[in-house]
Protein backbone atom coordinates (compact mmCIF):
# COMPACT_ATOMS: atom_id res chain seq x y z
CA UNK A 1 0.00 0.00 0.00
CA UNK A 2 1.16 3.53 -0.63
CA UNK A 3 2.94 5.10 2.34
CA UNK A 4 0.84 7.50 4.39
CA UNK A 5 1.86 10.99 3.41
CA UNK A 6 2.96 13.12 6.32
CA UNK A 7 1.47 16.55 5.68
CA UNK A 8 4.17 19.11 4.94
CA UNK A 9 2.24 21.90 6.53
CA UNK A 10 2.32 22.75 10.21
CA UNK A 11 -1.42 22.89 10.79
CA UNK A 12 -2.12 19.71 8.84
CA UNK A 13 0.78 17.98 10.62
CA UNK A 14 -0.71 19.00 13.96
CA UNK A 15 -4.05 17.50 12.97
CA UNK A 16 -2.27 14.40 11.75
CA UNK A 17 -0.56 13.74 15.10
CA UNK A 18 -3.66 14.70 17.05
CA UNK A 19 -5.67 12.08 15.22
CA UNK A 20 -3.14 9.42 16.25
CA UNK A 21 -0.68 9.69 13.36
CA UNK A 22 2.91 8.67 14.03
CA UNK A 23 6.12 10.18 12.72
CA UNK A 24 9.43 8.52 11.87
CA UNK A 25 12.94 9.98 11.98
CA UNK A 26 13.21 10.54 8.25
CA UNK A 27 9.78 12.14 7.87
CA UNK A 28 9.30 15.85 7.39
CA UNK A 29 8.32 17.58 10.63
CA UNK A 30 7.75 21.18 11.69
CA UNK A 31 10.75 22.76 13.38
CA UNK A 32 8.69 23.49 16.47
CA UNK A 33 7.77 19.81 16.76
CA UNK A 34 11.40 18.76 16.38
CA UNK A 35 12.48 21.27 19.03
CA UNK A 36 9.81 20.17 21.47
CA UNK A 37 10.70 16.53 20.89
CA UNK A 38 14.38 17.15 21.55
CA UNK A 39 13.64 19.16 24.67
CA UNK A 40 11.26 16.56 26.08
CA UNK A 41 13.24 13.45 25.19
CA UNK A 42 16.56 14.97 26.22
CA UNK A 43 15.13 15.79 29.64
CA UNK A 44 14.00 12.20 29.92
CA UNK A 45 17.52 11.00 29.05
CA UNK A 46 19.04 13.43 31.54
CA UNK A 47 16.66 12.20 34.22
CA UNK A 48 17.64 8.59 33.67
CA UNK A 49 21.29 9.50 33.84
CA UNK A 50 21.00 11.74 36.89
CA UNK A 51 18.58 9.28 38.49
CA UNK A 52 21.49 6.89 38.64
CA UNK A 53 23.38 8.95 41.18
CA UNK A 54 21.09 8.90 44.24
CA UNK A 55 20.92 5.10 44.08
CA UNK A 56 24.42 4.40 42.91
CA UNK A 57 25.90 5.35 46.31
CA UNK A 58 23.90 2.53 47.86
CA UNK A 59 25.18 -0.12 45.47
CA UNK A 60 28.24 -0.18 47.69
CA UNK A 61 26.17 -0.53 50.87
CA UNK A 62 23.59 -3.10 49.88
CA UNK A 63 23.08 -5.38 52.89
CA UNK A 64 22.87 -8.79 51.18
CA UNK A 65 24.22 -10.34 48.01
CA UNK A 66 20.73 -10.53 46.53
CA UNK A 67 20.02 -6.86 47.20
CA UNK A 68 23.41 -5.94 45.84
CA UNK A 69 22.69 -7.71 42.57
CA UNK A 70 19.17 -6.35 42.25
CA UNK A 71 20.14 -2.77 42.97
CA UNK A 72 23.12 -2.87 40.62
CA UNK A 73 20.88 -4.28 37.91
CA UNK A 74 18.34 -1.53 38.49
CA UNK A 75 20.90 1.25 38.20
CA UNK A 76 22.35 -0.50 35.17
CA UNK A 77 18.90 -0.46 33.55
CA UNK A 78 18.72 3.28 34.05
CA UNK A 79 22.03 3.77 32.32
CA UNK A 80 20.73 1.57 29.52
CA UNK A 81 17.62 3.73 29.28
CA UNK A 82 19.76 6.85 29.04
CA UNK A 83 21.67 5.25 26.19
CA UNK A 84 18.48 4.34 24.30
CA UNK A 85 16.94 7.74 24.87
CA UNK A 86 20.00 9.77 23.90
CA UNK A 87 20.19 7.73 20.68
CA UNK A 88 16.69 8.93 19.82
CA UNK A 89 17.75 12.51 20.56
CA UNK A 90 20.87 12.07 18.43
CA UNK A 91 18.84 10.91 15.48
CA UNK A 92 16.71 14.04 15.87
CA UNK A 93 19.85 16.12 15.47
CA UNK A 94 21.40 16.72 18.88
CA UNK A 95 24.58 14.70 19.58
CA UNK A 96 24.93 12.90 22.87
CA UNK A 97 28.07 14.80 23.77
CA UNK A 98 26.17 18.05 23.40
CA UNK A 99 23.39 16.74 25.65
CA UNK A 100 25.93 15.74 28.28
CA UNK A 101 27.79 19.04 28.02
CA UNK A 102 24.54 21.00 28.43
CA UNK A 103 23.59 18.79 31.35
CA UNK A 104 26.78 19.32 33.35
CA UNK A 105 26.80 23.02 32.46
CA UNK A 106 23.41 23.33 34.13
CA UNK A 107 21.74 24.31 30.85
CA UNK A 108 19.39 21.34 30.72
CA UNK A 109 16.78 20.04 33.12
CA UNK A 110 16.14 16.73 34.80
CA UNK A 111 13.35 15.43 37.00
CA UNK A 112 12.81 17.00 40.42
CA UNK A 113 13.18 13.78 42.40
CA UNK A 114 16.81 13.34 41.36
CA UNK A 115 17.87 16.57 43.02
CA UNK A 116 17.31 15.18 46.53
CA UNK A 117 19.61 13.21 48.83
CA UNK A 118 19.19 9.52 49.66
CA UNK A 119 19.71 9.27 53.37
CA UNK A 120 19.08 5.65 54.22
CA UNK A 121 18.37 2.19 52.85
CA UNK A 122 14.73 3.11 53.39
CA UNK A 123 15.10 5.77 50.71
CA UNK A 124 16.48 3.13 48.35
CA UNK A 125 13.28 1.13 48.79
CA UNK A 126 10.98 4.12 48.48
CA UNK A 127 12.73 5.33 45.33
CA UNK A 128 12.59 1.95 43.63
CA UNK A 129 8.99 1.41 44.62
CA UNK A 130 7.27 4.79 44.48
CA UNK A 131 9.48 7.03 42.37
CA UNK A 132 9.64 4.31 39.76
CA UNK A 133 5.88 3.80 40.04
CA UNK A 134 5.33 7.49 39.38
CA UNK A 135 7.79 7.32 36.49
CA UNK A 136 6.21 4.26 34.90
CA UNK A 137 2.85 6.06 34.80
CA UNK A 138 4.40 8.86 32.74
CA UNK A 139 6.32 6.42 30.62
CA UNK A 140 3.36 4.18 29.84
CA UNK A 141 1.60 7.24 28.50
CA UNK A 142 4.55 7.70 26.14
CA UNK A 143 3.89 4.33 24.49
CA UNK A 144 1.42 6.29 22.37
CA UNK A 145 3.83 9.14 21.60
CA UNK A 146 3.40 10.60 18.12
CA UNK A 147 7.14 10.18 17.55
CA UNK A 148 7.36 6.47 16.83
CA UNK A 149 11.06 5.78 17.58
CA UNK A 150 10.54 7.14 21.08
CA UNK A 151 7.33 5.18 21.58
CA UNK A 152 9.14 1.99 20.53
CA UNK A 153 11.98 2.24 23.06
CA UNK A 154 9.43 2.96 25.75
CA UNK A 155 8.27 -0.65 25.48
CA UNK A 156 11.64 -1.91 26.66
CA UNK A 157 11.91 0.82 29.28
CA UNK A 158 8.48 0.12 30.79
CA UNK A 159 9.22 -3.59 30.85
CA UNK A 160 12.42 -2.99 32.81
CA UNK A 161 10.80 -0.47 35.16
CA UNK A 162 8.35 -3.13 36.22
CA UNK A 163 11.28 -5.09 37.71
CA UNK A 164 12.30 -2.02 39.66
CA UNK A 165 8.94 -1.64 41.30
CA UNK A 166 9.02 -5.30 42.31
CA UNK A 167 12.53 -4.91 43.71
CA UNK A 168 11.51 -1.75 45.58
CA UNK A 169 8.42 -3.28 47.04
CA UNK A 170 10.39 -6.30 48.14
CA UNK A 171 12.96 -4.10 49.89
CA UNK A 172 10.13 -2.24 51.63
CA UNK A 173 8.35 -5.45 52.64
CA UNK A 174 11.51 -6.86 54.21
CA UNK A 175 11.91 -3.71 56.26
CA UNK A 176 8.32 -3.20 57.37
CA UNK A 177 8.27 -6.80 58.59
CA UNK A 178 11.67 -6.38 60.25
CA UNK A 179 12.67 -4.58 63.42
CA UNK A 180 10.80 -1.46 64.61
CA UNK A 181 13.86 0.57 63.65
CA UNK A 182 13.73 -0.80 60.11
CA UNK A 183 10.02 0.04 59.87
CA UNK A 184 10.85 3.54 61.05
CA UNK A 185 13.47 3.92 58.30
CA UNK A 186 10.76 3.29 55.72
CA UNK A 187 8.27 5.70 57.30
CA UNK A 188 10.92 8.42 57.53
CA UNK A 189 11.88 7.88 53.91
CA UNK A 190 8.24 8.07 52.84
CA UNK A 191 7.85 11.32 54.79
CA UNK A 192 10.86 12.78 53.01
CA UNK A 193 9.83 11.66 49.52
CA UNK A 194 6.11 12.39 49.59
CA UNK A 195 6.47 16.08 48.74
CA UNK A 196 8.72 15.49 45.71
CA UNK A 197 6.50 12.57 44.64
CA UNK A 198 3.41 14.77 44.61
CA UNK A 199 5.28 17.35 42.53
CA UNK A 200 6.66 14.72 40.17
CA UNK A 201 3.94 14.83 37.50
CA UNK A 202 4.02 18.62 37.32
CA UNK A 203 1.50 21.35 38.00
CA UNK A 204 -2.07 20.67 36.98
CA UNK A 205 -2.18 22.75 33.81
CA UNK A 206 -5.00 21.65 31.53
CA UNK A 207 -3.72 19.12 28.98
CA UNK A 208 -4.87 21.33 26.09
CA UNK A 209 -2.55 24.09 27.20
CA UNK A 210 0.44 21.77 27.47
CA UNK A 211 2.46 22.01 24.25
CA UNK A 212 3.81 18.50 24.81
CA UNK A 213 0.24 17.22 24.83
CA UNK A 214 -0.72 19.42 21.89
CA UNK A 215 1.86 17.67 19.68
CA UNK A 216 0.89 14.32 21.23
CA UNK A 217 4.37 13.83 22.59
CA UNK A 218 2.57 13.11 25.86
CA UNK A 219 -0.80 11.46 25.79
CA UNK A 220 -2.09 12.42 29.21
CA UNK A 221 -2.27 15.49 31.37
CA UNK A 222 -0.28 16.02 34.55
CA UNK A 223 -3.18 15.76 36.96
CA UNK A 224 -4.47 12.62 35.27
CA UNK A 225 -1.08 11.00 35.89
CA UNK A 226 -1.00 12.09 39.54
CA UNK A 227 -4.51 10.75 40.14
CA UNK A 228 -3.49 7.44 38.62
CA UNK A 229 -0.48 7.31 40.92
CA UNK A 230 -2.53 8.02 44.03
CA UNK A 231 -5.17 5.54 43.01
CA UNK A 232 -2.67 2.79 42.45
CA UNK A 233 -0.30 3.34 45.34
CA UNK A 234 -1.96 5.01 48.32
CA UNK A 235 -3.88 1.79 49.13
CA UNK A 236 -0.62 -0.18 48.84
CA UNK A 237 1.10 2.23 51.22
CA UNK A 238 -1.73 2.03 53.75
CA UNK A 239 -1.94 -1.75 53.72
CA UNK A 240 1.62 -1.92 55.03
CA UNK A 241 0.72 0.22 58.03
CA UNK A 242 2.59 3.22 56.69
CA UNK A 243 1.22 6.74 56.94
CA UNK A 244 1.14 9.25 54.12
CA UNK A 245 2.26 12.61 55.53
CA UNK A 246 -0.72 14.56 54.21
CA UNK A 247 -3.73 14.90 56.50
CA UNK A 248 -5.87 16.19 53.64
CA UNK A 249 -5.30 13.18 51.44
CA UNK A 250 -8.51 11.26 50.75
CA UNK A 251 -10.52 9.84 47.91
CA UNK A 252 -13.83 11.54 47.23
CA UNK A 253 -16.98 9.59 46.47
CA UNK A 254 -16.57 10.45 42.79
CA UNK A 255 -13.19 8.71 42.81
CA UNK A 256 -11.03 11.84 42.67
CA UNK A 257 -8.19 12.18 45.15
CA UNK A 258 -7.92 15.38 47.15
CA UNK A 259 -4.61 16.40 48.62
CA UNK A 260 -2.70 19.32 50.02
CA UNK A 261 -1.54 21.56 47.21
CA UNK A 262 2.03 20.53 46.37
CA UNK A 263 4.67 23.20 46.68
CA UNK A 264 4.96 24.35 43.06
CA UNK A 265 7.52 27.01 43.95
CA UNK A 266 9.78 24.33 45.36
CA UNK A 267 9.34 22.29 42.17
CA UNK A 268 10.30 25.23 40.01
CA UNK A 269 13.23 26.12 42.22
CA UNK A 270 14.52 22.55 42.25
CA UNK A 271 14.25 21.76 38.54
CA UNK A 272 15.90 25.03 37.59
CA UNK A 273 19.01 23.75 39.27
CA UNK A 274 18.61 24.69 42.91
CA UNK A 275 17.83 21.36 44.56
CA UNK A 276 19.70 20.26 47.68
CA UNK A 277 21.97 17.94 45.67
CA UNK A 278 21.90 19.54 42.22
CA UNK A 279 25.29 21.14 42.28
CA UNK A 280 27.09 18.26 43.92
CA UNK A 281 25.68 15.72 41.49
CA UNK A 282 26.39 17.80 38.42
CA UNK A 283 29.94 18.32 39.66
CA UNK A 284 30.31 14.58 40.16
CA UNK A 285 29.11 13.89 36.61
CA UNK A 286 31.37 16.59 35.25
CA UNK A 287 34.34 15.09 37.05
CA UNK A 288 33.96 11.68 35.44
CA UNK A 289 33.00 13.10 32.08
CA UNK A 290 36.25 15.05 32.03
CA UNK A 291 38.38 12.40 33.66
CA UNK A 292 37.38 9.75 31.12
CA UNK A 293 37.26 11.92 28.00
CA UNK A 294 40.49 10.29 26.79
CA UNK A 295 38.77 6.90 26.74
CA UNK A 296 36.05 8.11 24.42
CA UNK A 297 38.69 9.74 22.25
CA UNK A 298 40.64 6.49 21.97
CA UNK A 299 37.67 4.19 21.55
CA UNK A 300 35.68 6.26 19.13
CA UNK A 301 38.65 7.48 17.10
CA UNK A 302 37.92 6.83 13.45
Amino acid at each position, binding site marked *: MAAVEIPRDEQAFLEYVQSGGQVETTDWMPEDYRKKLIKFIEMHGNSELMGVLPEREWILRAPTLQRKLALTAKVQDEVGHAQLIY*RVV*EDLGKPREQCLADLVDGKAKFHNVFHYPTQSWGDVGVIAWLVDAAAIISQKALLKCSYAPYARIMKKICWEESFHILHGRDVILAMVTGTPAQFELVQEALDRWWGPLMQFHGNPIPADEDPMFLWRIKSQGNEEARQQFLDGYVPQIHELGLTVPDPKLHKRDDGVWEYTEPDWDELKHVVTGHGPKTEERLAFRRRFLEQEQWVRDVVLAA
Partner: protein
Amino acid sequence: MSEHPVWEVFRKERRGQPFEHAGSVVAPDADFAEAWAREQYGRRGESVALWLVPRDSIRDVEDWADEFDLKYRRVDGYSIKARLKEARERAGTAGPG
Protein backbone atom coordinates in the same frame (compact mmCIF):
# COMPACT_ATOMS: atom_id res chain seq x y z
CA MET B 1 29.13 11.18 18.90
CA SER B 2 26.81 11.15 15.93
CA GLU B 3 29.84 11.08 13.62
CA HIS B 4 30.70 7.66 15.02
CA PRO B 5 29.35 4.46 13.55
CA VAL B 6 25.79 3.63 14.48
CA TRP B 7 24.86 -0.03 14.50
CA GLU B 8 21.22 -0.92 14.11
CA VAL B 9 20.29 -3.82 16.34
CA PHE B 10 17.69 -6.41 15.46
CA ARG B 11 16.71 -9.05 17.95
CA LYS B 12 14.91 -12.36 17.84
CA GLU B 13 12.91 -12.98 20.97
CA ARG B 14 12.33 -16.69 20.52
CA ARG B 15 13.34 -19.33 18.06
CA GLY B 16 11.06 -19.39 15.07
CA GLN B 17 10.20 -15.70 15.35
CA PRO B 18 11.37 -12.99 12.97
CA PHE B 19 14.10 -10.51 13.86
CA GLU B 20 12.67 -7.17 14.88
CA HIS B 21 14.35 -3.82 15.09
CA ALA B 22 15.30 -3.18 18.72
CA GLY B 23 17.31 0.04 18.64
CA SER B 24 20.86 1.08 17.98
CA VAL B 25 24.27 1.41 19.58
CA VAL B 26 27.25 3.59 18.77
CA ALA B 27 30.39 1.46 18.56
CA PRO B 28 33.75 1.74 16.82
CA ASP B 29 33.84 -1.80 15.43
CA ALA B 30 31.94 -5.05 15.29
CA ASP B 31 33.53 -6.43 18.48
CA PHE B 32 32.51 -3.45 20.58
CA ALA B 33 29.12 -3.41 18.92
CA GLU B 34 28.66 -7.06 19.86
CA ALA B 35 29.83 -6.65 23.44
CA TRP B 36 27.57 -3.67 23.98
CA ALA B 37 24.50 -4.92 22.10
CA ARG B 38 24.67 -8.24 23.94
CA GLU B 39 24.23 -6.40 27.20
CA GLN B 40 21.80 -3.75 26.07
CA TYR B 41 19.45 -6.13 24.28
CA GLY B 42 20.02 -9.52 25.84
CA ARG B 43 21.09 -9.36 29.46
CA ARG B 44 17.70 -10.49 30.77
CA GLY B 45 17.48 -13.38 28.34
CA GLU B 46 15.05 -11.38 26.21
CA SER B 47 16.78 -12.29 22.94
CA VAL B 48 18.01 -15.57 21.48
CA ALA B 49 19.86 -13.89 18.62
CA LEU B 50 20.89 -10.43 17.44
CA TRP B 51 21.77 -8.93 14.08
CA LEU B 52 24.08 -5.95 14.11
CA VAL B 53 24.06 -3.88 10.97
CA PRO B 54 26.08 -0.74 10.31
CA ARG B 55 23.54 1.95 9.55
CA ASP B 56 25.48 2.95 6.44
CA SER B 57 24.86 -0.49 4.98
CA ILE B 58 21.12 -0.12 5.07
CA ARG B 59 19.39 0.95 1.92
CA ASP B 60 16.34 2.93 2.79
CA VAL B 61 13.36 2.45 0.50
CA GLU B 62 10.40 4.64 1.29
CA ASP B 63 8.86 5.99 -1.90
CA TRP B 64 6.08 4.04 -3.52
CA ALA B 65 4.50 5.32 -6.67
CA ASP B 66 0.91 4.20 -7.09
CA GLU B 67 -0.34 6.77 -9.52
CA PHE B 68 -2.43 4.41 -11.64
CA ASP B 69 -4.90 1.85 -10.49
CA LEU B 70 -2.85 -1.09 -9.29
CA LYS B 71 -5.46 -2.33 -6.89
CA TYR B 72 -5.70 -5.74 -8.53
CA ARG B 73 -2.59 -6.60 -6.49
CA ARG B 74 -4.27 -5.85 -3.19
CA VAL B 75 -7.15 -7.16 -1.17
CA ASP B 76 -9.05 -3.90 -1.45
CA GLY B 77 -8.95 -4.29 -5.24
CA TYR B 78 -11.58 -7.01 -5.16
CA SER B 79 -15.16 -6.14 -4.47
CA ILE B 80 -16.91 -9.46 -4.80
CA LYS B 81 -19.97 -8.79 -2.71
CA ALA B 82 -22.43 -7.82 -5.47
CA ARG B 83 -21.39 -10.54 -7.87
CA LEU B 84 -21.43 -13.20 -5.20
CA LYS B 85 -24.96 -12.24 -4.30
CA GLU B 86 -26.03 -12.50 -7.92
CA ALA B 87 -24.34 -15.87 -8.34
CA ARG B 88 -26.06 -17.23 -5.24
CA GLU B 89 -29.43 -16.01 -6.44
CA ARG B 90 -28.98 -17.68 -9.81
CA ALA B 91 -27.94 -20.91 -8.18
CA GLY B 92 -30.80 -20.70 -5.72
CA THR B 93 -28.42 -20.95 -2.78
CA ALA B 94 -28.99 -17.48 -1.35
CA GLY B 95 -29.76 -17.72 2.35
CA PRO B 96 -32.58 -15.83 4.06
CA GLY B 97 -31.70 -12.14 4.53
